[in-house]
């Protein structure tokens, strides 16, 4: 009996000691190897990217193009939302975080070593279910719908039916950009009955299958399943976004802690080069050069 007691005590204390040690290494200003998040990981052969679901498809295409020329590098791209991108990059969980909005002041204050690189610009399309007989809305109408002051399609020239509002979760960069550009408040209060979905793809699916619904998605997610409406007279096209006529445009940011180096720097240079920006334009986004 004594042996059982002592041995279990020993093993229990070992477990406690293991649980007591801190889990995440603190990202310090001196670390210029952002790819090495744990001491034992090999450097510069893998780049992990996470964040905005708007940036995700573009990042995947850019990753494939780069990996084609550099087969020894592996780039993995995940979603989660812009705030996930900021947080993961800041905490060192990934090499590059992506966001489809500007970095907030609070985030810069909390993580002063965060570096942001604009790799593209993207429009946000206001989309409705294909059966809604409307082709255009004004900015104020969209604002009213998302505030909850406009609840029926008949108030904006449509049929007599209740508007089903679809939005994104609070941490979404698309929602934040939509907030700044349409609602005049990044942290706007969406109408309480809005259906919240966790990604661009989920919003698109919900709007395409829910009659009388309205939502907002990145230009890159536009396809035949939903109808994009013109805002203040400007249709949701890349040309209008480039010319500035279409008002709802936001930056795609890639974020690192400290100056990027090694493979991360190489990939970022590629993205900002002529070849990279040509890919950006091909995919339907706005190049930054």
């Amino acid at each position, binding site marked *: 009996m004594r042996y*059982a007691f002592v*041995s279990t005590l020993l093993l229990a204390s070992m477990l406690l000691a293991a649980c007591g040690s801190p889990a995440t290494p603190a990202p310090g200003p001196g670390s210029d190897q952002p790819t090495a998040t744990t001491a034992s990981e090999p450097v510069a052969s893998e780049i992990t990217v996470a964040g905005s679901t708007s940036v995700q498809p573009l990042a995947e295409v850019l990753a494939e193009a780069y990996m084609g020329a550099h087969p020894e590098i592996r780039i993995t791209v995940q979603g989660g939302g812009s705030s996930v991108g900021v947080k993961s990059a800041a905490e060192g969980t990934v090499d590059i975080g992506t966001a489809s909005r500007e970095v907030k002041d609070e985030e810069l204050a909390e993580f002063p070593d965060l570096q942001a690189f604009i790799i593209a610009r993207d429009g946000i399309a206001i989309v409705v279910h294909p059966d809604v007989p409307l082709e255009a809305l004004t900015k104020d109408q969209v604002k009213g719908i998302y505030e909850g002051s406009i609840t029926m399609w008949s108030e904006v020239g449509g049929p007599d039916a209740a508007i089903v509002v679809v939005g994104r979760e609070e941490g979404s960069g698309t929602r934040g950009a939509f907030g700044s550009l349409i609602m005049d408040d990044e942290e706007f209060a969406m109408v309480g009955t809005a259906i919240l979905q966790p990604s661009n793809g989920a919003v698109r699916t919900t709007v395409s299958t*829910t009659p009388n619904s309205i939502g907002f998605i990145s230009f890159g997610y536009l396809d035949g399943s939903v109808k994009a409406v013109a805002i203040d007279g400007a249709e949701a096209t890349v040309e209008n976004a480039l010319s500035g006529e279409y008002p709802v445009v936001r930056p795609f940011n890639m974020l690192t802690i400290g100056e990027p180096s090694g493979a991360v720097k190489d990939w970022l240079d590629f993205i900002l080069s002529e070849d990279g920006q040509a890919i950006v334009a091909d995919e339907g986004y706005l190049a930054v050069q």
Partner: protein
Amino acid sequence: MRRRYLVDRSVRYLLFFSALISLFIVFMIALFTLREAWPAFREIGLLNMLTSSEWRPGRDQFGLLAMIAGSVWAAVGSMILGVPLALAGAIFLAEVAPVWMRGIVRSSVELLAGIPSVVYGLFGMVVLLPAIRRIPVAGNTGFGILAASIVLAVMILPTITNIAEDAIRAVPREYKEGSLALGATHWQTILGVTLPAARSGIVAAVILGVGRAVGETMAMIMVIGNSIVLPRPLNSNPLTLFLSQARTLTGNIAVEISYATGLHEDALFATGVVLFVLIMIINSSANLLIRERRR
């Protein structure tokens, strides 16, 4: 001879140690969650969190009332739909079914238990939502508590049926034989003797099912709408409460945890503590009810 003794002893220590590990893990999870949630309780206040329905992390408002209501209504709905069905299944399997049918029905019910919750959510999104949308009530989007209740009812069916069936089978034969000898029909016996005798086990089964319903996350996120509103009837008919969208406590954590920082993150851990306590209350009442019946 000595070796047999050693093997016996070491197996004993091994089993003792394994049990200790499980206890240890539960303890550590509870401790960790409480520790992370503590700053939220201190800064926001437990009472405020439980009574306010304003959840706006951007404005430092963390009221959980809407989510508590969402979880409760979804669980209530799943009980209304699932318990009669599950009990009927249990009675059928224990008392009525011919032997050849028992195997088929029981395996199908157990298959239900093996389906991943995200598949239930998918089924809900693709099949249930358009069907519910057909109900002609203004403001009905398909998403909401009804969809959640239906999905949950199907998910808790195997849990309740399984345990209730065992409870019914455990009723001593003498009760049934005595009742039948007195001239009661089979159904009169089931209703008047077997079920009351199995009552504590059945209640335990139901409460375990409810516990599972309250803890379900993935399927809930996909069909309940995740809107931060207090569920209320959509028109003068109080039943339309079930067509209202909602957000569950579990959904609250899952949707926001990946990007929450600071006080927001602590508030989500506090949501976890509330969930923990809710499920503990549910399980304790189950135990209390069983113990009372045994007396």
